[in-house]
C-alpha cells in the first residue's frame, strides 16, 4: 500500500549511461536526444540554461521552445515544443557549407568549427528547422549605464557574463571582441564540452519536467535508446528525410 519510491532520479541513470558510453568504444557512439512533449512544462529553462551555459549573445539561441494553443474553449490544450539542433544524420546544413566548417562528427553530432567558418550563412538558409543563428556581435549590456555613474555599471556586468566566452567545443575562445565566434554561424552542439567531462547537456539537467533525455542510441541499455523505441516517438518534418537524431514523444 505504501508506494515504492524511485531509487534515483532519471538524471543519475542517464549520466551513468553516458559515462558508460564514453569510457567504451567511442566510435560506436551515436548521441541522441529524446524530448517528451507530454512532460514538457513549457518552462523555457532549457532555453535559458543553454544561453547561460554557452554565454550566447542577444539574437543567438540554440534551443527555443515553441508554444501553441490547441482546441477551443473550454476544451483547450497547450503544447510546448523545444527545438535544439536536431543533429540530422542527413544534414542539409552540412552539404552547403563551402569550407567544411560545419560537419557531422564521428558521434553524429553536427558541429561548427568557428575557426573555419567564413560566415556566409548558407547553412542558416539551408536548415529546415531554423536551428542556426548567426552571431552579429551583440551585447546584452548595450545601452546600460557605465561604472562612472555610482552604480555597478555596464563594464563590471559584461565582465560577469559577456566578456569571457564559454568553453564551447572544449576550447578557450578569445575575449569577446571582434574575433570568432562573432561573424560565425552558431548552433546547438549537444554540449560536447560537458559530454567530454561525463556530464549531460545543460538543457537536459535543468529540465524541470524531466522531458529531455540524452544518450547513446547505439547502447540498448541506455534510457535514450529505450525511449526511441516508444510508440509515441516521432521526428520533425520527416518528409525532408533529414533523419534527425533528436526524437520527440507525442
Amino acid at each position: 500500500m505504501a508506494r515504492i519510491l524511485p531509487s534515483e532520479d532519471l538524471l543519475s541513470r542517464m549520466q551513468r549511461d553516458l559515462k558508460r558510453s564514453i569510457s567504451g568504444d567511442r566510435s560506436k557512439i551515436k548521441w541522441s536526444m529524446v524530448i517528451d512533449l507530454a512532460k514538457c512544462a513549457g518552462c523555457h529553462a532549457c532555453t535559458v540554461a543553454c544561453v547561460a551555459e554557452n554565454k550566447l549573445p542577444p539574437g543567438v539561441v540554440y534551443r527555443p521552445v515553441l508554444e501553441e494553443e490547441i482546441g477551443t474553449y473550454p476544451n483547450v490544450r497547450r503544447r510546448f515544443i523545444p527545438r535544439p539542433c536536431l543533429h540530422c544524420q542527413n544534414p542539409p546544413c552540412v552539404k552547403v557549407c563551402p569550407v567544411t566548417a560545419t560537419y557531422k562528427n564521428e558521434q553524429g553530432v553536427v558541429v561548427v568549427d568557428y575557426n573555419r567558418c567564413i560566415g556566409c550563412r548558407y547553412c542558416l538558409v539551408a536548415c529546415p528547422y531554423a536551428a542556426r543563428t548567426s552571431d552579429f556581435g551583440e551585447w546584452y549590456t548595450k545601452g546600460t549605464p557605465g561604472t562612472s555613474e555610482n552604480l555597478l555599471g555596464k563594464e563590471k556586468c559584461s565582465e560577469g557574463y559577456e566578456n569571457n566566452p564559454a568553453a564551447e567545443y572544449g576550447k578557450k575562445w578569445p575575449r569577446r571582441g571582434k574575433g570568432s565566434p562573432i561573424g560565425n554561424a552558431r548552433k546547438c552542439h549537444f554540449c560536447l564540452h560537458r559530454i567530454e567531462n561525463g556530464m549531460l547537456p545543460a538543457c537536459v539537467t535543468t529540465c524541470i519536467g524531466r522531458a529531455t533525455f540524452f544518450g547513446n542510441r547505439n547502447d540498448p541499455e541506455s534510457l535514450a535508446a529505450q525511449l526511441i523505441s516508444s510508440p509515441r516517438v516521432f521526428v520533425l518534418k520527416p518528409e525532408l528525410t533529414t533523419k534527425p537524431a533528436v526524437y520527440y514523444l507525442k
Partner: protein
Amino acid sequence: MRYKYFGLLIILAVLGLIVGSFGLAERLLNGLNPTALGSYIPWGLWVAFYLFFLGLSAGAFLVTIMTYVLGMKQFEHIGPLAAFTVLIALLCEVQFILLDLGQFHRALYQFFLSPSFTSLMTWMFVLFNAMLVIYALKTFLLIRGNMIKMADKEKGRLLKNIYKLLVLGQTSYSEQQRANDRRWVGILAKISLPVGLLFYGTNGTFFAILISRPVWNSALTPLLFIVAALLSGGALITFLTYLFRLKDPLNANGFCREEQLCLDLGKIILFLLIVFLALEALQFFVGYQTGTAAIVTSLNLIVGGPYWWAFWIVHVLIGSVIPLLLLLFGSHNPRSVVWACFLIFVTFLAVRFNFVMPDLAVYKLEGLEATFYHPRLRTEYIPSLNEWLVSPWIVSSGLIAFLMGTRFLPVVTDETGGAANE
C-alpha cells in the same frame, strides 16, 4: 575614346566612393553588426546587388558569345567593351559577396584549405575564378594590339608607362600575332560558353537545392536564373550601348551604328523576355498544381503578400507588359527598344527581391517568432544605412574602373575591335 557624360559620371563615381567609404569603414571595423541582417533573413541588399551585377555580367557575356562564338559581325565593334564589362561586373559581384561574409578574411584562404565540393558555393567560387581568368585574358588579347599603338602614340609619361606595363613592354604587334590573338579569343569564347552557362546556372542551383525552401527547391530555378541573367544583362547592355552611342556616321535609315545594334539586341531581348515569362508562368502553374501548403503560402505571399505591388505593378506591369508591347510594336524604333530595356533592368531588382524574400519571410516553424525576441530573429528586413552606404562604394568602384577603361583603354574603338579585315 571620349564620350559625353564622362566628366559627370566620374564626379558621380567619386562622390559615391567618398560617401560609401564611411559605410565601408564601419563595415570593416564592426563586422556585420551595423547591418540589418538577421538569422531568419540572413541575406539582404548586398546579395540582391550581387544578383543584379550577375545579370549585368551575363548580358555582356551574351554579347561576347554572339560576337565570338556565333560570329555575329554587327556586334564585333562592342565585343571588347562587352568582355571588359563582364570583367568589371565580376569584380563588383565579388566585392558584394566578400563584404557579406561574417569572416571574409577567411574566405581568402579557407576555400583552398578545406573546400567542400558538395557545396554549390564552392563551385560558384571555382567558376567565378574561371570566368575572371577567361575574361581578363580575352580582354587583354582583344585590346593589346591597339594598346601597343597607343603606347607609342601617347605623350603623357604616366599613361605611356601604364600602357607599356599592360602590354608587357611589347612595342610591335605583327599581323600574324593579331591573327593568333583572334584565334585564342575564339577558343576562350568557346570555353567561356559552357563555363558561363554553368556559372549562371550554378547561381540558380545555389538556391534550387535548398529542400526547405519550397519555391526555390525546383529544377526550374537554375534555368530561370540563366534566362533572368541574360535578360536583365542584355537589357542593360542595350541601354549602355545606346547611352554611349556615337552619332555619326548615320546609316540609310538615319540610325548610327549603336542604334542599329540596339534594334538587333531588341529582338534577342524580346525572345528572352518571352521565354522568361513563360518559365515564370510555369513556376506558378506547377507550384499551385502541387498544392503543397508551403509552396502555396510562399506563392500567395508573392502575389498577395505585403509586397504584392512589387510583383504586380513593378514586375508584371512596368517590367514585363509595357516592355513587351514596346518591343513588339516599336521594334524598329531604337528609342522604344531602349526604353523597354531600361524598364526591364531597372525593375529587375524587384524580380530578385520577389525571388529571395517570400521564401525567407515565412518562419520555418510555426510560432518561432514568439520564442526568443531580438530584432535579428524576425522576418521583417529593411536594409540599414550601412548597407545602403556600402553599396554605392562598390558600385562606384566598378563605375570608375569602367569609365577609366572605356576612356583610356581601347575597349571601344571606331574600327571593329581589333578584328582582322579578311
